[in-house]
């Protein structure tokens, strides 16, 4: 499978996650969000950037609790919870936000 972004064809896995995180650019997230009917706001980008920064540093997606805590630190403690993240990404941080951010799909018993 693949997606077309900025005139380029990017390979994805069966669930639409980028095969190579190195090919990610902001337009990838924009394009995936458009397909899902979501308009990316600054609040979305805060989450996406946290995911990308963490992945670049740790080669893994952050644990949900760690993600929430980091969001809380950045934009206010009242927003550091899963309800807030699901409000932005209805399918959840692992399924949807990681996908937009170019991270591989977290799989296992989750």
């Amino acid at each position, binding site marked *: 499978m693949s997606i077309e972004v900025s005139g380029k064809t990017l390979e994805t896995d*069966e*669930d639409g996650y980028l095969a190579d995180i190195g090919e990610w650019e902001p337009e990838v997230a924009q394009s995936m969000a458009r397909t899902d009917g979501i308009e990316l706001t600054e609040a979305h980008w805060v989450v996406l950037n946290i995911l990308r920064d963490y992945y670049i540093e*740790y*080669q*893994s*997606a*952050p*644990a*949900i*609790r*760690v993600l929430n*805590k980091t969001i809380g630190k950045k934009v206010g403690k009242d927003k550091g919870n*899963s309800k807030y993240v699901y409000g932005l990404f209805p399918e959840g941080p*692992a*399924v949807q936000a990681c996908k937009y951010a170019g991270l*591989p799909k*977290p*799989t*296992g*018993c*989750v």
Partner: protein
Amino acid sequence: MVDFEKPELRETPVVPSIKPGVMSHLASHVAKPKIQEPLGYPGELVDNWEQAAVDKLGELKGKYRSLQVFLDSCVFCGACTDKCHYFLGSADPKNMPVARQELLRSVYRRYYTLPGKWFPKLVGARDMNREVLDEWYSYFYQCSECRRCAVFCPLGIDTAEIAMAAREIMDSVGRGQKYSNEVIGKVFKFGNNLGLAVRAVADTLASLEEDVEEETGVKVRFPLDEEGAEVLLMAPSADFFAEPHVDGLIGYGKVFHQAGISWTFSSHAAEGGNFGLFIGSYDNMRRVAVRVREAALDLGVKRIVFGECGHAWRVAYSFLNTLAGPFDFLDPRYPVPQHICEVTYDLMKRGVLKFDKSQNDHMVLTFHDSCNVARASGMGDLADGQFTIPREIIKATCNHFVEMSPSTIRGATFCCGAGGGTLTDELMEIRTRGAVPRMGALQHVTDKHGVTHMVSICAICKSQFSKIMPYFDFDAEMSMGVHQLVSNAIILDKRD
């Protein structure tokens, strides 16, 4: 979210009128060569795969006498037909256990019985061909290997073992399931199912220490790779990563802290789960299990304790010693291995742990028995301990506990709908349908007794429930773990 006609939820499920082929469109993603090869399987279908599959069946039925007995002994009495949650939720007759078995048995009959060799059409024997393979791939991955059917089979035929054999045959000729096999590959590469790098695990645990101290004022430790610790804790990696799982992990840490037991995770084996079981692969299951032994030896621990993970406990309880033993280097005063619930129960009985039940007063709880714990293991030194011990812990940590219908708990428990390698998004339709019997039993106790939360001791159950509950108009946060209750209620002493 999947779209299908939502069945009426009943306390005990109604047997549906059959709808042939209604689930035949569903198939898991197929594993690519880079996922197959690290497990020792061909990357794609081998030449002459039909014969190779038949030969593999011959090998397996010779190696596992149970398989031969199960293939020969079915008398088609039909007792199993309405016992499978996937049949009850989908109405597809191929999801009746006897029909699922027949997918493999018809091929067995063709090549390994006299009537099948001479008069295949008369005895319903089938050639191994592409159509059969595709049907196997679809329906053997619509089995969660929960073994409920085996409880009701008068001959004790275990459909799970037949599904495992079929999966091993398919893997061996180059047709593997992406979900299970990718997870096993991650264990070999990263030490855990989620593929978390060591630094990410360390960062997560450090963050938990910070959180717990902030919440309780007590320095509860979550150690990694600490040599000389008494206990090696084997938790599912979902406990690091996901919600509500992590709240249970916090509970384990508090129990060890309060009891003064030193403990550690291992980065080499930061995973209790063993998906080798799901695909019926002795070799992969052994390779995953051996890490537990290596980690225990490297860290010099005296005890091995497993966290809240259903199939991990089945492999640990039933097979760990034969897969990776002997464990004669561990402290002989403790069972090898131990379940975290046994540890907590024992400490509770001895008065080492004290609980403030009122901390869980905002909830009315019920307990979902996880299939692998309920039907494939034991716990503690009492008969039926796997049912009693988690319930005793729940009752000691909360004031409001009620049971679901007796035909849906303990040994007769219904699968969450996503066990045995089916917890993957492309199978969401059968996962949701398969949850119908459990959701019906839950609906009944929410209506009658005001149940607000359902507790389980399995990472897959917790994830599955969080995901599918909203479809049945339940809150995703209704799903929680036993040690989450413990975490809420435990009274901690301040000590450094």
